[in-house]
């Protein structure tokens, strides 16, 4: 595997009284597509800039392939950055932009031409070599920035919200392209984004950050299915959150008393005590909505009224007010639309059924 492993060890960084990073530690493996995900101001860009060498951590060290990067300026580090604003040099053509690092290194002209054309073809821009950046579209600028960052054959590519300036459809396309470039070059990608969908769809692993702290590190599945905290659950995808008291427990099976829902069964390995206050979450697509009452083991069934159906083509989102007064969100996919399943409409009386195993405990506090 090409690429380098990057170790972030107890890194803290403050700007004045604002603590951007608080004791952050991460282990990024060789060749990984690693995302730093979080809302703006969570410290993800500061961390990326610290890895690139634009910020010096106040405490802690950053290691690339085991060697300490402290005090090493950006031009001495074997990593390159794709900037959010692309940062293409406006006075140079596409070719010269991509050739810039080679010209700095005084690479022979013949080799420059060969390498630049190779990298332009990697990002499918062979025909645009002589244009100025101002003549390119946003997506094309993005590609130039990627080619330019890759031409020095870095072992780590740092991407700072590279797609945020593109429109939604183009973003999807570029994301897939980034993924395939990652497969081709095989180096470590560290990808900063605030868009959970982007992070979920391409990452090998994700670190979710908020307020300068890493909340959870895991594969997209782990992050989505098993959020470590309430913040992670809320930040990634849509979710339902309940807070309640543990009434009784039998093995992993807890009976939870929730104010506006009544009692729920929760099957989760997190050890809790009777009397603890816990927060549980369940993804909307795990909740089945139906006109008739379903039966099953460890099945929670709640009765309610459809308060708001939101049709969006491939699925309908239902916001249901349950008997206790609380609200639940659920999705129903339209996979077999015309097969006689009775349509569920506004103000219909419905049953929501969900397995105790699909409820995940995200917070707990004793007593």
């Amino acid at each position, binding site marked *: 595997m090409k690429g380098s492993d990057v170790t972030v060890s107890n890194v803290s960084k403050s700007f004045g009284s604002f603590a951007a990073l608080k004791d952050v530690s991460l282990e990024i493996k060789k060749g990984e597509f690693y995302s730093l995900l979080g809302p703006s101001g969570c410290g993800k860009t500061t961390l990326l800039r610290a890895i*690139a*060498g*634009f910020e010096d951590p106040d405490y802690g060290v950053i290691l690339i392939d085991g060697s300490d990067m402290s005090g090493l*300026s*950006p*031009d001495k580090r074997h990593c*390159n*950055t794709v*900037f959010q*604003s692309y*940062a*293409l*040099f*406006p*006075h140079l053509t596409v070719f010269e932009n991509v050739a*810039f*690092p080679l010209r*700095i*290194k005084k690479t022979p002209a013949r080799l420059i031409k060969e390498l630049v054309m190779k990298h332009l073809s990697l990002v*499918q*821009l062979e*025909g*645009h070599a002589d244009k*100025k950046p*101002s*003549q*390119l*579209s*946003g*997506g*094309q600028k993005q590609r130039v920035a990627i080619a*330019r*960052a890759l031409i*020095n054959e870095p072992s780590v590519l740092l991407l700072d919200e590279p797609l945020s300036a*593109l*429109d939604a*459809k*183009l973003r*999807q*396309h570029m994301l897939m392209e980034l993924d395939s470039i990652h497969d081709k070059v095989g180096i470590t990608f560290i990808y900063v984004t605030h868009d959970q969908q982007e992070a979920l769809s391409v990452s090998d692993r994700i670190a979710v950050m908020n307020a300068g702290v890493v909340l959870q590190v895991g594969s997209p599945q782990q992050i989505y299915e098993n959020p470590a905290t309430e913040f992670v659950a809320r930040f990634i995808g849509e979710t339902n959150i309940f807070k309640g008291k543990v009434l009784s427990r039998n093995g992993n099976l807890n009976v939870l008393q929730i104010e506006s829902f009544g009692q729920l069964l929760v099957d989760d390995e997190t050890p809790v005590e009777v009397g603890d206050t816990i927060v549980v979450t369940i993804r909307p697509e795990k909740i089945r909505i139906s006109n008739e009452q379903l039966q099953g083991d460890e099945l929670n069934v709640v009765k309610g009224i459809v308060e708001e159906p939101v049709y969006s083509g491939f699925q309908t989102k239902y916001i249901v007010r349950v008997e206790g007064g609380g609200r639940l969100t659920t999705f129903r996919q339209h996979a077999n639309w015309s097969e006689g399943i009775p349509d569920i409409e506004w103000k219909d009386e419905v049953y929501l059924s969900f397995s105790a195993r699909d409820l995940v405990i995200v917070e707990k506090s004793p007593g």
Partner: protein
Amino acid sequence: MKRNLGPAYVAPQALWITVFFAAPLLIIVAYSFLQKGLYGGVEPVFSIQAWVDMANPTLLKVTLKTLWVSLAATIVIILLALPCGYSIARSKNQALRLFLVIVPFWTNFLVRIYAWISILGNEGFVNQALRFLGFRAEGFQFLYNQGAVVFVLVYMYLPYAILPLFSTIDKFDFTLLEAARDLGATRMQSYTKVMIPNIKGGVITAVLFTFIPIFGAYAVPLLIGGKDSYMLGNVIADQLTKTRNWPLASAISMSMTLLTAIAVFLFAFKKPKEQQTVKDIDPLSQPNGKTIEFLHRSPEQGKKKPSGKGAA
């Protein structure tokens, strides 16, 4: 039908330019082709004597010296103004710093020259201070040499370079410097290879704003310089007031104006290349990159917009 009032709107300005710019200029041109009067002024007789008189080695020497001094002062000014403009642009209290750059303008030009004389003169502040500290009693001669002229010229015209450089650097995207560093450039290379080419317009303006007035400097070489510090401005003044050869003064003035004008046109008004802007096209709706490229080249897509950015 609406009457075209354009000429009426332009008239005041046209009158202003004619009376205060074109007419005097024409008078100077005319004077240079007339015979000199005995006690100044001109006789209304056609003569090219003034232009013939210009071909003398002394005048050539002064011209070369003037060019040299102007060039030296301009280079020093630009080298000082670049970091100044940069630090003002990156500073958090731009307004205060710009204010400090402008403050000297509140004092009259001549008064500021005399201020330098009272600072650097033989009995000036610096010499008195040095004497007090026990340096040699006769003091140092700071003024009345070429170096002093360049020094005071730099002081006088520095703000004219700082202001345009500041305004260009302020618009410069500093992420580009980080990008250059990230791509392997040293700090110095990031400035020379990325920043300077991108603020070229500002540098050109700064050069013009300083070189042209310095080229015509009169008071500074007269008051600060020595016998050998004469510049073209002083020669013209002497021809006008002492030698009373008005046609020659006119001819030298005209030559300077022409020289400067030609230089400005060559230097600053190179035609900027036409550029076109392209809007994003969704590549998903295009079968491949080739189609996109084709679309970008088609006339509907590539409506040419002349670049709005002028050189100066």
